[in-house]
């Protein structure tokens, strides 16, 4: 029977410089869906969780989902799954563009990279042909240049690569593809760098993936497209203003962390908002492959069309650093793309450094001509360059992220992170549900593992009072489980503003021949979430790692509509564990058995 799984894995042994094709166990694939879920299962089975993440024994799994490349809205995503060098826990970073679909068109569901090449290399895939080639001439080069060279060399290819950040094992390093798309978080780029892999090119003569049931797929896709088009967020807000439309709303409710979370309202919000961007520098929308939404921003920078900052970046470099200069933020965003580092963690690390400078830990002489003063557009651009390229003593230290930076000065509490991953742009003192979601995220401080902002701020699918803790643990769990499936399917999370679990189930069934219902989809998500947690447990995670920075638990918000608020995590966490069937932060034997783990 036809299915949208290719049924093939490309295993690349970098030490031996060899590649081989293996069959994918389709029963296993269906149990863990694909992408994030299947990649996590393979990591769990093949990698000792205690391994040094930057050693040859760690593996990098680059996995598509069963809907990647299929004619569904946003069927383009891939995930990078590995053990994170940032926090020694499971990493899975998601990216769009077209590269993931090309891997699928070429005939593979996923790649496993193992060992370590003795010198810089890249992998070139053209349908069923693949080779490992020398990348000595590309090492040290920035991502745009590398992409141009490789596209010139290999006709019709899409390029995934790392920048100087990944080569220098920066814990901020991302895996970049198609110029500006990023599997950004958890330092996944450093793991590729540790293996001496600079790039993976992928081309195919195919442009589609056959589903199991073409008629059923056509029907559900037409329904999904209509729902997306008619949805206020996915059909209007995101296309018109991008994710940046959130700047003004989060600031208006006083939940917009400012100057490294010392305040929660930013007087420069309007100047750095989606509305201002649309009125000034916006050239057009950017679209990932097969995406009808087009949330990405293309802006003018030095006369050229460049990827513009999205919400998280406008915040991490904007409010978080006290900067209201939109041009400087877009420029810092561009430097992140060129050097291949994560825009959230890079901006947050500069914000932490600015607080260390404010408090006298970092001295003027450490700054080598670029003082880390709040609000400096010059500082965010220059320190991003220094971090991305590993320049100056302090720049090298900052390239290891805010946690290690603050720890170096003996004050790790100024790193606004959870499991060492910098928190994103929603103040968990004002919005309670996102706090329990950050704290229990398997990869650390992250909003896209369970976007409870949808109900708590946007009222989707229903309005929840953001300051209340009532039932927030339940919402967090449902969102975490559903997100695990969406990530594993190969679709973009932003479709979930318009689509519900039953639509994803229908799409998966039509594409793969499975027979998921809503409960089946949520159970698959729960299985994936628990498997990630098991990996972390075996890797040495402690219950106290499910935490938030001290500031969110002990320093009330100082002003604005949410003045006086603190995170009520200690009240929510026991309820969360109970509902998950976990004890002391980890799944019980009964839970594991129920989920078939």
């Amino acid at each position: 029977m036809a299915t949208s799984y290719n049924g093939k894995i490309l295993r690349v042994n970098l030490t031996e410089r060899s590649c081989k094709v293996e069959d994918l166990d389709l029963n296993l694939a269906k149990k863990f869906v694909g992408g994030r879920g299947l990649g996590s299962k393979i990591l769990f089975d093949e990698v000792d969780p205690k391994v040094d993440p930057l050693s040859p024994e760690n593996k990098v799994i680059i996995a598509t989902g069963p809907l990647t490349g299929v004619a569904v809205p946003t069927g383009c995503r891939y995930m990078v799954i590995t053990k994170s060098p940032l926090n020694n826990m499971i990493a899975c970073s998601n990216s769009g563009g077209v590269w993931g679909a090309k891997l699928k068109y070429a005939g593979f569901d996923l790649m496993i990279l193992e060992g370590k090449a003795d010198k810089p290399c890249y992998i070139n895939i053209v349908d069923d042909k693949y080779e490992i080639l020398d990348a000595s001439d590309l090492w040290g080069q920035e991502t745009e240049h590398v992409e141009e060279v490789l596209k010139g060399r290999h006709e019709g290819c899409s390029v995934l690569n790392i920048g100087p950040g990944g080569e220098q094992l920066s814990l901020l390093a991302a895996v970049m593809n198609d110029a500006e798309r990023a599997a950004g978080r958890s330092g996944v780029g450093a793991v590729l760098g540790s293996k001496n892999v600079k790039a993976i090119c992928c081309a195919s003569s195919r442009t589609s993936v056959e589903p199991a049931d073409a008629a059923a797929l056509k029907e559900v896709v037409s329904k999904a497209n209509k729902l997306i088009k008619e949805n206020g967020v996915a059909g209007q807000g995101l296309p018109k203003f991008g994710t940046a439309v959130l700047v003004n709303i989060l600031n208006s409710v006083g939940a917009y962390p400012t100057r490294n979370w010392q305040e929660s309202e930013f007087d420069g919000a309007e100047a750095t908002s989606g509305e201002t961007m649309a009125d000034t520098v916006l050239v057009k929308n950017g679209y990932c492959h097969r995406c009808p939404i087009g949330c990405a921003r293309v802006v003018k920078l030095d006369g050229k069309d460049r990827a513009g900052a999205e919400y998280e970046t406008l915040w991490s470099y904007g409010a978080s650093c006290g900067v209201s200069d939109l041009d400087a933020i877009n420029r810092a965003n561009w430097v992140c793309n060129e050097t291949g580092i994560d825009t959230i963690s890079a901006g947050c690390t500069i914000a932490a450094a600015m607080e260390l400078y404010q408090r006298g830990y970092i001295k003027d002489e450490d700054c080598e001509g670029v003082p880390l003063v709040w609000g400096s557009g010059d500082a965010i651009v220059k320190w991003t360059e220094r971090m991305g390229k590993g320049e100056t003593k302090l720049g090298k230290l900052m390239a290891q992220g805010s946690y290690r930076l603050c720890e170096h000065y003996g004050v790790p509490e100024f790193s606004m992170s959870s499991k060492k991953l910098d928190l994103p742009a929603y103040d968990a003192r004002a919005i309670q549900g996102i706090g329990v979601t950050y704290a229990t995220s398997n990869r650390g401080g992250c909003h896209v593992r369970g976007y409870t902002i949808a109900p708590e701020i946007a009222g989707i699918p229903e309005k929840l009072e953001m300051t209340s803790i009532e039932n927030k643990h339940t919402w967090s769990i449902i969102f975490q489980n559903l997100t695990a499936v969406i990530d594993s399917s190969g679709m973009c999370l932003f479709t979930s503003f318009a689509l519900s679990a039953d639509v994803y189930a229908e799409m998966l069934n039509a594409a793969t021949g499975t027979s998921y219902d809503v409960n089946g989809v949520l159970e698959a998500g729960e299985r994936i979430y628990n498997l990630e947690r098991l990996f972390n447990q075996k890797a040495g995670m402690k219950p106290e790692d499910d935490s938030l920075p001290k500031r969110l638990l002990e320093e009330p918000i100082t002003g604005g509509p949410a003045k006086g608020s603190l995170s009520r995590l200690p009240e929510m966490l026991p309820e969360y564990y109970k509902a998950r069937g976990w004890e002391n932060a980890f799944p019980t034997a009964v839970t594991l058995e129920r989920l078939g783990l």
Partner: protein
Amino acid sequence: MEVRLFATLRENRGKAVRVDWHEGINGLAVMESLGILPSAVAIYLINGRNANPDAALSESDIVSLFPPVGGG
């Protein structure tokens, strides 16, 4: 009183408008005076806090109106 508008609700209206306050005026009346359908407003804030558009406003209140917004 001050009414702040965001995203698509700014079209032909601007970022902020002043609406004459009178005893008993509520959010629905404010929307009507601006030609905004209540169904077009997904988030309604009084002084930065979620509120019910039925509730009466005081003269010093700042009202913020948002269409459906989301992102990540």
